[in-house]
């Protein structure tokens, strides 16, 4: 664990960003939302506000700073969850110092629980993979990797097709990781999804964010894959941890906010976003068969229920 000395309170948000980046560097396998929440908890321990309102404001600013660094949906949902966590705790304990101690204690507990989420999802989902199955997946997802790892450990024989997933060729990375697990894998072009769909038995994808309607936001190309799998009547499964649930309700692709679609540095430098390629797309719930989360196996309609329970 890298330790960063406190030099001055003005640089606290820079330290936060450094801490966040260090987390991701040290453990490339960690979910970005978990790294974000860990950094925010560290920020909470060090910041010096006198009132709960001040604490909330500082937190909100810190979360914005993190979102500027890494504009993925997961960081945003992790940040909102943390803010919600603070509001709930501060309602119970109006005294600031006592509140802070309770927050830190609960925060550590929360972090411990969500670090186990991926394992829980893996355990739930791998029973749906039958012997001899042909699976199609999109781009590189650590949760899908965990699921396939569990299935392989269960001595199931299956083959995997991964899409290349341009523009960053993340699919090749996934193929490499699967090769290391001795799982037969083939990389296909993004354009070949329709061609390969008749051969596969099921489609499993990860998610960067799960929205209120039960749809998912994931790497660009996921929507295409979902439409194809619906046309061929193949089950389309999404695996995601519960901290990825986010309070958005997009009705179509345009509704997804620009700050998620493009990388953080592009948003800052480029003037005409129409010339840029979006990195994510939205898959509506009607195309999803089931969602596997650490809260259980959910139908898309159950997702909004979960979100309501949290934000009531």
């Amino acid at each position: 664990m890298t330790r960063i000395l406190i030099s001055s309170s003005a640089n606290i948000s820079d330290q936060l960003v450094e801490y966040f980046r260090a987390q991701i560097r040290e453990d490339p396998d960690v979910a970005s939302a978990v790294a974000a929440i860990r950094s925010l908890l560290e920020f909470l321990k060090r910041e010096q506000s006198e009132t709960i309102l001040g604490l909330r404001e500082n937190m909100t600013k810190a979360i914005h700073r993190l979102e500027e660094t890494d504009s993925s949906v997961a960081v945003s949902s992790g940040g909102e969850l943390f803010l919600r966590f603070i509001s709930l705790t501060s309602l119970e304990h109006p005294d600031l110092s006592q509140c802070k101690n309770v927050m830190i204690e609960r925060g550590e507990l929360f972090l411990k629980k969500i670090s186990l989420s991926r394992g829980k999802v893996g355990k739930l989902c791998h029973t749906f993979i039958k012997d001899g199955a042909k699976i199609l997946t999109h781009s590189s997802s650590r949760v899908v990797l965990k699921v396939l790892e569990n299935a392989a450990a269960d001595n199931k024989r299956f083959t995997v097709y991964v899409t290349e997933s341009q523009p960053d060729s993340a699919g090749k990375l996934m193929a490499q990781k699967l090769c290391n697990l001795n799982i037969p894998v083939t990389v296909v072009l993004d354009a070949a999804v329709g061609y390969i769909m008749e051969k596969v038995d099921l489609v499993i994808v990860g998610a960067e964010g799960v929205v209120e309607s039960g749809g998912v936001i994931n790497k660009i190309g996921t929507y295409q894959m979902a439409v194809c799998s619906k046309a061929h009547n193949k089950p389309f499964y999404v695996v995601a941890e519960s901290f990825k649930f986010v309070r958005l309700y997009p009705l179509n692709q345009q509704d997804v906010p620009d700050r998620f679609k493009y990388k953080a540095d592009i948003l800052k430098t480029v003037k005409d976003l129409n010339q840029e390629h979006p990195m994510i797309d939205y898959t509506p719930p009607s195309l999803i068969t089931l969602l596997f989360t650490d809260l259980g196996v959910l139908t898309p309609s159950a997702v909004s229920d979960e979100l309501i329970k949290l934000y009531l």
Partner: protein
Amino acid sequence: MPGADKETDLSERIESFLSELKRCGSGAGSLRGSAETARETTALLRRITAQARWGNAGDLMEIIRKEGRRMTAAQPSETTVGNMVRRVLKIIREEYARSRGSTEEADQQESLHKLLTSGGSSEDNFRQHFAHLKANVIEAINELLTELEGTTDNISMQALEHIHSNEVIMTIGRSRTVEAFLKDAARKRKFHVMVAECAPFCQGHEMATSLSKEDIETTVIPDAAIFAVMSRVNKVIIGTQTVLANGGLRAVNGTHTLALAAKHHSTPLIVCAPMFKLSPQVSDTPVQSHLHDLVKLTSILSKVNAHGPVFDYVPPELITLFISNIGGNAPSYIYRLMSELYHPEDHEL
């Protein structure tokens, strides 16, 4: 010693129940309806609660779980047994929470909210002893039994809202729930019923005879004619063996065909199923292939393979409405009913 007698008496009853369950599956069709199985399972669980030796809720749950595993292993296709075991486990958890005075009896499920607000361990090992726990649990199980007895009537009471005069209703095979449903509607409305016979055992014939005794105009059709006749049908009403957690069905063979034909003609498909048929399984492939004894094919069995699956999987997109003893629900809502009936840790016995 009286204690030992009670125990041997209890284990005898459990053994006889298990052997009855095993016999049922290997015979032709089902010798007893699922309602009876549910009632007997619950009565047996009540007896176990009353007579077995246990000190705290944790022990009782272990005993019931163990017996539950044996019962489901005896007859895996009879899912009502497992469902009743899970209901009783939930009852024990609730009564325990109530005895402890905690207010979270409603929120026992995992949720994001719980993750955020729980301080300290949320693990409850149910080890505290409460004097009145036994009596409370037995009383709750009695309430469950009363509910079980009223299910068919509760479902039939809703018949008049769904069946209108001069309608043509289609059904398949023989379901006691649908029979009661249609008979109740027939008291006030005149309508026509088409029954698909459901080969090879043709339980549809018995259904048709029983319905015609109540002066309902009935027609029996062979399974192959389902699609041809569907254009003249207003509603399809069926029963089922199990309702799965994703809103799908495991029903008698031929139901999937019926559902697809109904979808093609945009005919509403209504499933009459009491709550005890709701199972936490989410699977679209059968756990085991249960096969009929295709006795009629003995002459050619030496020359060909015969395959006669007992159950069909019907996906939730083909179903319009579920009518249960607590009212009508859409298939997308089944997950919610399930979370109210069973605790997630009990999904795997």
